Protein backbone atom coordinates (compact mmCIF):
# COMPACT_ATOMS: atom_id res chain seq x y z
CA UNK A 1 0.00 0.00 0.00
CA UNK A 2 1.23 3.44 -0.88
CA UNK A 3 0.61 4.95 2.51
CA UNK A 4 2.71 2.32 4.26
CA UNK A 5 6.38 2.73 5.12
CA UNK A 6 9.02 0.14 5.98
CA UNK A 7 10.57 0.44 9.40
CA UNK A 8 12.85 -1.81 11.43
CA UNK A 9 12.24 -2.31 15.13
CA UNK A 10 14.62 -4.22 17.41
CA UNK A 11 12.66 -5.60 20.35
CA UNK A 12 13.85 -5.83 23.96
CA UNK A 13 15.29 -9.29 23.34
CA UNK A 14 17.44 -7.97 20.51
CA UNK A 15 15.34 -9.49 17.72
CA UNK A 16 14.94 -7.34 14.57
CA UNK A 17 11.52 -6.97 12.99
CA UNK A 18 10.84 -5.43 9.57
CA UNK A 19 7.33 -4.06 9.64
CA UNK A 20 4.97 -2.03 7.50
CA UNK A 21 3.63 1.01 9.27
CA UNK A 22 0.54 2.83 7.96
CA UNK A 23 0.89 6.60 7.72
CA UNK A 24 -2.81 7.30 7.21
CA UNK A 25 -4.17 5.84 10.46
CA UNK A 26 -2.92 8.54 12.87
CA UNK A 27 -0.54 5.98 14.37
CA UNK A 28 2.58 6.75 16.32
CA UNK A 29 5.62 4.51 16.72
CA UNK A 30 4.48 3.20 20.13
CA UNK A 31 1.18 2.14 18.57
CA UNK A 32 2.95 0.45 15.67
CA UNK A 33 4.96 -1.59 18.20
CA UNK A 34 1.74 -2.54 20.00
CA UNK A 35 -0.12 -3.42 16.81
CA UNK A 36 2.63 -5.91 15.93
CA UNK A 37 2.85 -7.07 19.58
CA UNK A 38 6.61 -6.54 19.66
CA UNK A 39 6.55 -5.83 23.42
CA UNK A 40 4.30 -7.56 25.98
CA UNK A 41 0.97 -5.86 26.72
CA UNK A 42 1.23 -3.54 29.69
CA UNK A 43 4.96 -2.92 29.23
CA UNK A 44 4.57 -0.27 26.53
CA UNK A 45 2.14 2.61 26.17
CA UNK A 46 1.21 2.64 29.86
CA UNK A 47 0.17 6.32 29.82
CA UNK A 48 -1.66 5.85 26.54
CA UNK A 49 0.79 8.05 24.66
CA UNK A 50 0.76 11.27 26.66
CA UNK A 51 4.55 11.49 27.15
CA UNK A 52 3.99 10.71 30.79
CA UNK A 53 5.52 7.27 31.40
CA UNK A 54 8.51 6.66 29.09
CA UNK A 55 7.47 3.02 28.64
CA UNK A 56 7.74 3.66 24.88
CA UNK A 57 11.34 4.92 24.99
CA UNK A 58 13.41 3.82 22.01
CA UNK A 59 16.82 4.51 20.54
CA UNK A 60 16.88 5.88 17.01
CA UNK A 61 19.52 3.99 15.01
CA UNK A 62 19.04 5.45 11.52
CA UNK A 63 19.77 8.96 10.28
CA UNK A 64 16.08 9.54 9.53
CA UNK A 65 14.94 13.10 10.11
CA UNK A 66 12.36 13.13 12.87
CA UNK A 67 10.16 15.94 14.18
CA UNK A 68 11.81 17.99 16.92
CA UNK A 69 11.15 17.12 20.52
CA UNK A 70 8.45 19.09 22.28
CA UNK A 71 8.89 20.27 25.87
CA UNK A 72 6.91 17.43 27.40
CA UNK A 73 8.90 14.73 25.61
CA UNK A 74 12.17 16.34 26.66
CA UNK A 75 10.98 16.67 30.24
CA UNK A 76 9.81 13.06 30.43
CA UNK A 77 13.06 11.76 28.97
CA UNK A 78 14.99 13.71 31.55
CA UNK A 79 13.21 11.68 34.24
CA UNK A 80 13.44 8.31 32.51
CA UNK A 81 16.10 5.66 33.04
CA UNK A 82 18.56 4.22 30.50
CA UNK A 83 18.38 7.44 28.47
CA UNK A 84 20.94 7.92 25.69
CA UNK A 85 21.61 10.76 23.26
CA UNK A 86 19.48 9.02 20.63
CA UNK A 87 16.53 8.35 22.94
CA UNK A 88 13.02 9.33 21.83
CA UNK A 89 9.53 8.57 23.06
CA UNK A 90 7.80 6.38 20.48
CA UNK A 91 4.39 7.83 21.28
CA UNK A 92 5.58 11.28 20.19
CA UNK A 93 6.67 10.11 16.75
CA UNK A 94 3.75 10.19 14.35
CA UNK A 95 4.27 7.95 11.31
CA UNK A 96 4.81 9.93 8.08
CA UNK A 97 5.98 9.04 4.57
CA UNK A 98 9.30 10.81 5.22
CA UNK A 99 10.17 8.15 7.82
CA UNK A 100 10.62 5.36 5.26
CA UNK A 101 13.58 3.26 6.42
CA UNK A 102 13.45 4.32 10.07
CA UNK A 103 15.36 1.99 12.41
CA UNK A 104 14.80 1.96 16.15
CA UNK A 105 15.57 -0.23 19.14
CA UNK A 106 13.21 -0.45 22.14
CA UNK A 107 14.78 0.67 25.42
CA UNK A 108 14.71 -1.79 28.33
CA UNK A 109 11.57 -1.99 30.44
CA UNK A 110 11.72 0.00 33.66
Amino acid at each position, binding site marked *: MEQDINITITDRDGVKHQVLAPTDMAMNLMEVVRSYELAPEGTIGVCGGMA*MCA*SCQCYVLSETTLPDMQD*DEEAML*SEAFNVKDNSRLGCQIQMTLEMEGLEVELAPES
Partner: protein
Amino acid sequence: MITTDILIIGAGPTGLFTVFEAGLLKLKCHLIDALPQPGGQCSEIYPKKPIYDIPAYPEILAGDLTHKLLEQCKQFEPGFTLGERAETIEKQDDGSFIVTTNKGTKHQAPVVAIAGGLGSFEPRKPILENITNFEDKGVEYIIKDPEFYRDKKVVIAGGGDSALDWSIFLADVAASVTLVHRRSEFRGHLDSVEKVQELKNVGKINLITPAEITAINGVENVESVEVTKKDEAPFILETDHFIPLFGLSPKLGPIGDWGLEIEKNAIKVDNALDYQTNIPGIFAIGDVNTYPGKLKLILCGFHEATLMCQAAYKIINPGKRYVLKYTTVSGVDGFDGTRKEAPKAVVKAID
Protein backbone atom coordinates in the same frame (compact mmCIF):
# COMPACT_ATOMS: atom_id res chain seq x y z
CA MET B 1 -8.67 -11.71 59.54
CA ILE B 2 -10.89 -9.55 57.34
CA THR B 3 -13.88 -11.55 56.05
CA THR B 4 -16.22 -10.59 53.23
CA ASP B 5 -18.32 -12.09 50.43
CA ILE B 6 -16.35 -10.88 47.43
CA LEU B 7 -12.71 -9.94 47.87
CA ILE B 8 -11.74 -7.54 45.09
CA ILE B 9 -8.11 -7.09 44.18
CA GLY B 10 -7.75 -3.66 42.61
CA ALA B 11 -9.77 -0.52 43.39
CA GLY B 12 -9.86 0.87 39.85
CA PRO B 13 -13.15 1.68 38.10
CA THR B 14 -13.93 -2.02 37.57
CA GLY B 15 -13.40 -2.94 41.22
CA LEU B 16 -15.42 0.04 42.46
CA PHE B 17 -18.41 -0.71 40.22
CA THR B 18 -18.32 -4.35 41.37
CA VAL B 19 -19.15 -3.12 44.89
CA PHE B 20 -22.37 -1.57 43.61
CA GLU B 21 -23.50 -4.56 41.53
CA ALA B 22 -22.63 -6.96 44.38
CA GLY B 23 -24.54 -4.76 46.82
CA LEU B 24 -27.71 -5.08 44.75
CA LEU B 25 -27.39 -8.84 45.34
CA LYS B 26 -26.77 -8.24 49.07
CA LEU B 27 -23.15 -9.32 48.79
CA LYS B 28 -20.46 -7.42 50.74
CA CYS B 29 -17.13 -6.43 49.23
CA HIS B 30 -13.65 -5.59 50.43
CA LEU B 31 -10.99 -4.09 48.14
CA ILE B 32 -7.20 -4.34 48.26
CA ASP B 33 -5.02 -1.89 46.32
CA ALA B 34 -1.30 -1.22 46.23
CA LEU B 35 -2.00 2.48 45.72
CA PRO B 36 -2.78 4.65 48.73
CA GLN B 37 -5.98 5.89 47.00
CA PRO B 38 -8.81 4.24 45.00
CA GLY B 39 -9.31 4.84 41.25
CA GLY B 40 -6.59 2.74 39.61
CA GLN B 41 -5.24 4.21 36.37
CA CYS B 42 -7.87 6.96 36.49
CA SER B 43 -6.49 8.38 39.73
CA GLU B 44 -2.81 7.47 39.32
CA ILE B 45 -2.14 8.29 35.67
CA TYR B 46 -4.70 10.80 34.41
CA PRO B 47 -7.02 12.21 37.13
CA LYS B 48 -7.29 15.62 35.47
CA LYS B 49 -7.82 14.40 31.91
CA PRO B 50 -11.22 13.99 30.27
CA ILE B 51 -12.76 10.70 29.10
CA TYR B 52 -15.27 10.86 26.25
CA ASP B 53 -16.59 7.31 25.99
CA ILE B 54 -18.33 6.67 29.30
CA PRO B 55 -21.96 6.03 28.29
CA ALA B 56 -24.18 9.04 29.02
CA TYR B 57 -21.22 11.29 29.88
CA PRO B 58 -20.20 13.32 26.81
CA GLU B 59 -17.16 14.28 28.87
CA ILE B 60 -15.99 13.45 32.40
CA LEU B 61 -12.64 13.87 34.13
CA ALA B 62 -11.07 10.57 35.21
CA GLY B 63 -10.82 11.88 38.77
CA ASP B 64 -14.52 12.81 38.78
CA LEU B 65 -15.45 9.37 37.47
CA THR B 66 -13.60 7.87 40.45
CA HIS B 67 -15.48 10.15 42.86
CA LYS B 68 -18.83 9.28 41.32
CA LEU B 69 -18.11 5.54 41.48
CA LEU B 70 -17.17 5.89 45.17
CA GLU B 71 -20.31 7.89 45.80
CA GLN B 72 -22.44 5.30 43.98
CA CYS B 73 -21.11 2.35 45.99
CA LYS B 74 -20.81 4.13 49.36
CA GLN B 75 -24.13 2.78 50.68
CA PHE B 76 -22.77 -0.76 50.35
CA GLU B 77 -19.98 0.08 52.82
CA PRO B 78 -16.99 -1.47 51.04
CA GLY B 79 -13.90 -2.16 53.14
CA PHE B 80 -10.50 -1.02 51.90
CA THR B 81 -6.95 -2.27 52.43
CA LEU B 82 -4.95 0.45 50.67
CA GLY B 83 -1.22 0.80 50.15
CA GLU B 84 -0.76 -2.98 50.29
CA ARG B 85 -0.18 -5.50 47.52
CA ALA B 86 -2.01 -8.83 47.40
CA GLU B 87 0.81 -11.34 47.53
CA THR B 88 -0.42 -14.91 48.10
CA ILE B 89 -3.67 -16.84 47.81
CA GLU B 90 -4.49 -20.09 49.61
CA LYS B 91 -7.56 -22.21 48.99
CA GLN B 92 -9.21 -23.49 52.20
CA ASP B 93 -10.99 -26.81 52.75
CA ASP B 94 -14.36 -25.07 52.83
CA GLY B 95 -13.72 -23.71 49.31
CA SER B 96 -12.95 -20.17 50.44
CA PHE B 97 -9.71 -18.29 49.80
CA ILE B 98 -7.28 -16.48 52.07
CA VAL B 99 -5.39 -13.62 50.42
CA THR B 100 -2.41 -12.15 52.27
CA THR B 101 -0.77 -8.82 51.45
CA ASN B 102 2.90 -7.86 51.52
CA LYS B 103 2.22 -6.26 54.91
CA GLY B 104 0.75 -9.51 56.25
CA THR B 105 -2.93 -8.43 56.28
CA LYS B 106 -5.16 -11.49 55.77
CA HIS B 107 -8.50 -11.52 53.98
CA GLN B 108 -10.93 -14.42 53.62
CA ALA B 109 -13.78 -14.74 51.13
CA PRO B 110 -15.64 -17.44 49.17
CA VAL B 111 -15.16 -15.47 45.94
CA VAL B 112 -12.12 -13.52 44.73
CA ALA B 113 -12.47 -10.99 41.90
CA ILE B 114 -9.18 -9.87 40.43
CA ALA B 115 -9.70 -6.38 39.00
CA GLY B 116 -5.99 -5.66 38.87
CA GLY B 117 -5.85 -3.65 35.64
CA LEU B 118 -2.37 -3.56 34.14
CA GLY B 119 -1.04 -4.77 37.47
CA SER B 120 -0.18 -3.36 40.81
CA PHE B 121 1.43 0.07 40.62
CA GLU B 122 5.06 -0.26 41.68
CA PRO B 123 7.55 2.58 42.04
CA ARG B 124 10.12 3.10 39.31
CA LYS B 125 13.43 2.83 41.11
CA PRO B 126 16.53 4.75 40.06
CA ILE B 127 19.42 2.57 39.01
CA LEU B 128 21.66 2.68 42.11
CA GLU B 129 23.23 -0.61 43.05
CA ASN B 130 22.59 -0.59 46.83
CA ILE B 131 19.23 1.18 46.83
CA THR B 132 17.22 -1.90 47.80
CA ASN B 133 19.34 -2.33 50.97
CA PHE B 134 18.07 1.01 52.21
CA GLU B 135 14.37 0.53 51.43
CA ASP B 136 12.35 1.53 54.52
CA LYS B 137 15.68 2.47 56.13
CA GLY B 138 15.66 5.98 54.76
CA VAL B 139 14.68 5.29 51.15
CA GLU B 140 10.95 5.59 50.39
CA TYR B 141 9.34 5.70 46.96
CA ILE B 142 5.83 6.64 48.08
CA ILE B 143 5.00 9.17 50.78
CA LYS B 144 2.20 7.77 52.91
CA ASP B 145 2.40 9.90 56.04
CA PRO B 146 4.15 13.27 55.73
CA GLU B 147 4.41 13.52 59.55
CA PHE B 148 6.98 10.73 59.34
CA TYR B 149 9.41 13.38 57.99
CA ARG B 150 8.88 15.95 60.74
CA ASP B 151 12.18 17.61 61.62
CA LYS B 152 14.11 15.20 59.37
CA LYS B 153 16.50 16.06 56.56
CA VAL B 154 14.94 15.01 53.25
CA VAL B 155 16.31 14.70 49.71
CA ILE B 156 13.73 14.33 46.93
CA ALA B 157 14.66 13.39 43.36
CA GLY B 158 12.41 13.80 40.32
CA GLY B 159 11.02 16.43 37.99
CA GLY B 160 7.28 15.82 37.83
CA ASP B 161 4.21 16.80 39.79
CA SER B 162 4.76 14.51 42.75
CA ALA B 163 8.37 15.67 43.27
CA LEU B 164 7.21 19.31 43.13
CA ASP B 165 4.11 18.88 45.29
CA TRP B 166 5.86 16.89 48.01
CA SER B 167 8.80 19.30 48.10
CA ILE B 168 6.32 22.12 48.71
CA PHE B 169 4.41 20.17 51.35
CA LEU B 170 7.47 18.93 53.22
CA ALA B 171 9.11 22.36 53.21
CA ASP B 172 6.87 23.15 56.20
CA VAL B 173 7.34 19.81 57.91
CA ALA B 174 10.90 18.59 57.44
CA ALA B 175 14.06 20.11 58.91
CA SER B 176 15.32 20.65 55.37
CA VAL B 177 14.18 19.77 51.85
CA THR B 178 16.56 19.34 48.93
CA LEU B 179 15.12 18.79 45.46
CA VAL B 180 17.45 17.23 42.91
CA HIS B 181 16.56 16.97 39.23
CA ARG B 182 18.47 16.19 36.08
CA ARG B 183 17.32 19.37 34.42
CA SER B 184 16.43 22.88 35.44
CA GLU B 185 13.01 22.51 33.80
CA PHE B 186 10.22 20.79 35.70
CA ARG B 187 7.13 19.11 34.33
CA GLY B 188 4.08 20.01 36.36
CA HIS B 189 1.26 22.41 37.00
CA LEU B 190 2.28 26.02 36.65
CA ASP B 191 1.33 26.93 40.23
CA SER B 192 3.46 24.08 41.64
CA VAL B 193 6.47 25.19 39.62
CA GLU B 194 5.99 28.80 40.73
CA LYS B 195 5.57 27.81 44.37
CA VAL B 196 8.84 25.85 44.34
CA GLN B 197 10.56 28.86 42.81
CA GLU B 198 9.18 31.01 45.65
CA LEU B 199 10.26 28.56 48.37
CA LYS B 200 13.68 28.31 46.78
CA ASN B 201 14.05 32.10 46.80
CA VAL B 202 13.28 32.29 50.52
CA GLY B 203 15.63 29.40 51.23
CA LYS B 204 13.00 26.84 52.26
CA ILE B 205 13.83 24.46 49.42
CA ASN B 206 17.39 23.70 48.45
CA LEU B 207 17.24 23.18 44.67
CA ILE B 208 20.10 21.36 42.95
CA THR B 209 19.87 21.16 39.13
CA PRO B 210 20.93 19.80 36.71
CA ALA B 211 22.12 17.03 38.95
CA GLU B 212 21.62 13.40 39.89
CA ILE B 213 21.95 11.27 42.99
CA THR B 214 24.82 8.94 42.15
CA ALA B 215 25.26 6.98 45.41
CA ILE B 216 23.62 6.30 48.76
CA ASN B 217 25.78 6.00 51.86
CA GLY B 218 25.09 4.68 55.33
CA VAL B 219 25.76 1.72 57.61
CA GLU B 220 22.28 0.55 58.59
CA ASN B 221 20.20 3.59 57.62
CA VAL B 222 20.68 6.30 55.01
CA GLU B 223 23.22 8.85 56.29
CA SER B 224 24.08 10.75 53.14
CA VAL B 225 23.75 10.77 49.37
CA GLU B 226 26.27 11.63 46.69
CA VAL B 227 25.09 14.40 44.37
CA THR B 228 26.69 14.90 40.98
CA LYS B 229 26.01 18.14 39.19
CA LYS B 230 26.48 18.10 35.46
CA ASP B 231 30.17 18.50 34.56
CA GLU B 232 31.19 18.93 38.20
CA ALA B 233 32.84 16.73 40.83
CA PRO B 234 30.41 14.79 43.04
CA PHE B 235 29.76 15.98 46.59
CA ILE B 236 28.24 14.44 49.70
CA LEU B 237 24.97 15.69 51.18
CA GLU B 238 23.94 14.52 54.65
CA THR B 239 20.32 13.38 54.89
CA ASP B 240 17.95 11.16 56.86
CA HIS B 241 15.72 10.31 53.91
CA PHE B 242 16.10 9.90 50.18
CA ILE B 243 12.78 9.92 48.31
CA PRO B 244 13.04 9.16 44.58
CA LEU B 245 9.76 10.14 42.89
CA PHE B 246 10.02 8.85 39.32
CA GLY B 247 6.44 7.70 38.97
CA LEU B 248 4.84 4.30 39.22
CA SER B 249 4.59 1.57 36.64
CA PRO B 250 2.14 -1.33 36.74
CA LYS B 251 3.44 -4.87 37.16
CA LEU B 252 1.29 -8.01 37.16
CA GLY B 253 3.61 -9.21 39.94
CA PRO B 254 2.67 -12.01 42.37
CA ILE B 255 -0.72 -12.69 40.72
CA GLY B 256 1.27 -14.19 37.86
CA ASP B 257 2.28 -17.03 40.22
CA TRP B 258 -1.19 -17.94 41.47
CA GLY B 259 -1.64 -20.80 39.04
CA LEU B 260 -3.90 -18.79 36.74
CA GLU B 261 -3.68 -19.16 32.98
CA ILE B 262 -1.78 -16.11 31.72
CA GLU B 263 -1.71 -14.86 28.14
CA LYS B 264 -0.28 -11.52 26.96
CA ASN B 265 0.37 -10.44 30.57
CA ALA B 266 -3.33 -10.89 31.32
CA ILE B 267 -5.51 -13.59 32.91
CA LYS B 268 -7.50 -15.84 30.61
CA VAL B 269 -11.19 -16.04 31.44
CA ASP B 270 -14.36 -17.65 30.14
CA ASN B 271 -16.10 -14.74 28.47
CA ALA B 272 -18.98 -16.86 27.17
CA LEU B 273 -20.17 -17.25 30.75
CA ASP B 274 -19.01 -15.29 33.75
CA TYR B 275 -15.34 -14.22 33.49
CA GLN B 276 -14.21 -17.05 35.77
CA THR B 277 -10.56 -18.07 35.55
CA ASN B 278 -9.23 -21.62 35.35
CA ILE B 279 -9.55 -21.74 39.18
CA PRO B 280 -13.25 -21.93 40.18
CA GLY B 281 -14.16 -19.14 42.58
CA ILE B 282 -11.52 -16.77 41.19
CA PHE B 283 -12.74 -14.29 38.59
CA ALA B 284 -10.80 -11.72 36.57
CA ILE B 285 -12.53 -8.56 35.31
CA GLY B 286 -11.54 -5.32 33.63
CA ASP B 287 -8.16 -4.59 32.06
CA VAL B 288 -6.54 -7.57 33.80
CA ASN B 289 -8.37 -10.26 31.82
CA THR B 290 -8.16 -11.45 28.26
CA TYR B 291 -10.44 -13.36 25.89
CA PRO B 292 -10.98 -13.30 22.14
CA GLY B 293 -11.89 -9.74 21.15
CA LYS B 294 -11.05 -8.21 24.54
CA LEU B 295 -10.98 -4.40 24.67
CA LYS B 296 -9.36 -2.64 27.61
CA LEU B 297 -12.04 -0.02 28.15
CA ILE B 298 -13.80 1.15 31.29
CA LEU B 299 -17.27 0.36 29.98
CA CYS B 300 -16.22 -3.24 29.21
CA GLY B 301 -15.00 -3.60 32.81
CA PHE B 302 -18.40 -2.45 34.08
CA HIS B 303 -20.20 -5.08 32.01
CA GLU B 304 -17.82 -7.83 33.11
CA ALA B 305 -18.24 -6.85 36.78
CA THR B 306 -22.03 -7.09 36.49
CA LEU B 307 -22.04 -10.60 35.02
CA MET B 308 -19.35 -11.77 37.46
CA CYS B 309 -21.52 -10.74 40.43
CA GLN B 310 -24.33 -13.01 39.24
CA ALA B 311 -21.93 -15.96 39.22
CA ALA B 312 -20.61 -14.98 42.66
CA TYR B 313 -24.19 -14.98 43.99
CA LYS B 314 -24.67 -18.57 42.82
CA ILE B 315 -21.45 -19.68 44.53
CA ILE B 316 -22.28 -17.92 47.79
CA ASN B 317 -26.00 -18.85 47.81
CA PRO B 318 -26.12 -22.28 46.15
CA GLY B 319 -29.56 -23.21 44.85
CA LYS B 320 -31.13 -19.94 46.02
CA ARG B 321 -33.53 -18.28 43.59
CA TYR B 322 -32.78 -14.89 42.15
CA VAL B 323 -34.59 -12.69 39.74
CA LEU B 324 -33.23 -9.58 38.06
CA LYS B 325 -34.75 -6.41 39.42
CA TYR B 326 -34.56 -2.92 37.99
CA THR B 327 -33.15 -0.37 40.42
CA THR B 328 -35.88 2.03 39.31
CA VAL B 329 -38.59 -0.40 40.33
CA SER B 330 -37.22 -1.94 43.51
CA GLY B 331 -35.03 0.91 44.75
CA VAL B 332 -31.63 0.44 46.38
CA ASP B 333 -31.29 -0.64 50.01
CA GLY B 334 -27.86 0.24 51.38
CA PHE B 335 -26.08 -1.80 54.04
CA ASP B 336 -25.87 1.46 55.97
CA GLY B 337 -29.68 1.56 56.37
CA THR B 338 -30.29 4.11 53.62
CA ARG B 339 -32.90 3.55 50.95
CA LYS B 340 -33.15 5.13 47.54
CA GLU B 341 -36.38 4.78 45.63
CA ALA B 342 -38.36 6.31 42.83
CA PRO B 343 -41.15 8.63 43.98
CA LYS B 344 -44.55 6.96 43.83
CA ALA B 345 -47.07 8.18 41.31
CA VAL B 346 -49.91 10.15 42.89
CA VAL B 347 -53.36 8.67 42.86
CA LYS B 348 -55.85 11.47 43.05
CA ALA B 349 -59.26 12.14 41.64
CA ILE B 350 -59.78 14.92 39.14
CA ASP B 351 -63.16 16.55 39.64
